[in-house]
């Protein structure tokens, strides 16, 4: 059952949903807690990180076949944020996210594969700058606890992955900015667990 709950959360992970999820339904979830983060490396000496402030997700949960869980996330590229605003505006420019032409990036799952206790691989397609490539994300349930509200639980997920930005035509400044981009998504899901009583 823990596994099924984790699977439910899986969806949420990408969405960082503050909205309770219930099996067998589709949810449109606005991001409230979650964080879609990315990190690039510079000359192997240090790295810089940023996040997307706005994204929305839709989850379809099939309680009897959790592996049929579907996750679709739309990221507003213009919401990219870094500690240094100049760097964020650089990322919005044409050589990077080109937000004027490509206001959205999308991740749509194609398959969810259990990889061990509380671990899942989420296979899917990432559309970025109008280019679509497959991407595998690794999801882990890192914490699960009662929310304080009867029948609700909070599940925290960490999702990681790595992509090559050049595959999406983002080839600017290869000398200083690594091609590999590490993704890290922190998400919190409120689950109804009434059905879990057994």
């Amino acid at each position, binding site marked *: 059952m823990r596994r099924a709950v984790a699977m439910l959360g899986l969806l949420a992970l990408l969405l960082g949903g503050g909205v309770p999820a219930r099996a067998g339904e589709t949810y449109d979830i606005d991001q409230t807690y979650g964080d879609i983060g990315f990190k690039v490396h510079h000359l192997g000496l240090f790295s810089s990180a940023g996040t997307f402030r706005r994204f929305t997700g839709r989850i379809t949960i099939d309680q009897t076949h959790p592996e049929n869980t579907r996750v679709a996330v739309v990221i507003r590229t213009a919401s990219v944020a870094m*500690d240094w605003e100049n760097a964020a505006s650089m990322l919005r420019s044409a050589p990077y996210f080109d937000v004027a032409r490509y206001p959205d990036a999308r991740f749509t799952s194609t398959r969810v594969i259990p990889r061990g206790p509380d671990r899942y691989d989420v296979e899917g397609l990432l559309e970025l700058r109008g280019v679509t490539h497959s991407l595998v994300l690794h999801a882990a349930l890192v914490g699960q606890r009662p929310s304080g509200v009867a029948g609700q639980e909070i599940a925290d997920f960490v999702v990681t992955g790595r992509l090559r930005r050049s595959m999406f035509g983002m080839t600017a400044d290869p000398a200083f900015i690594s091609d590999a981009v590490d993704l890290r998504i922190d998400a919190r899901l409120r689950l109804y667990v009434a059905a879990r009583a057994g």
Partner: protein
Amino acid sequence: MLAEAPAGWSRAQRRLHWWSAGLILGGFAIAWPMVALPLDQLLAKFLLYQAHKTIGLTVLALLLWRGALRLRRGRPAWDAGLPPGQARLAGAVHLALYALMLVVPVLGYFTAATAPAQVPTLFLLVIPVPHAVGADPAAFGVLRVVHRALAILLVALAAGHAAMAVHHHRKGLPILARMWRATP
């Protein structure tokens, strides 16, 4: 005899003077393109910042060394041909130059540490210099302006100081000569 002023500048004092002067002018010169470079030349920008910070920290280290020598050994007596008023002025300028050689790099260090772009300080590009404080945009906004203003003051004062040195040299006083080579 020990209490007496030395006959001239020691070799270490002379070397430290010229190395410091060269490094300050070099660090000052690269500060402008370093800040002005656009973000599509990040690698060059990064390297210039590291060079600037390495140079500035070296100036600071040389200053401490110089300062210790100066306190222990003192300086030769003012040249007899220098009017006392000018000697007093020169003394004040030297003190100000010493103070600025301390304050400008220290402010530079805090400018780097508080910058919203959290780029590490890598001495000679390989030795990480820990930042004692973290990003602080408000402090950075003040520090960068003061660091720059005092750096300009340092270089302006040094230019006046150098002009006077050259002026006295042309008048035949052996002041520049004794900073340049050993006093016999």
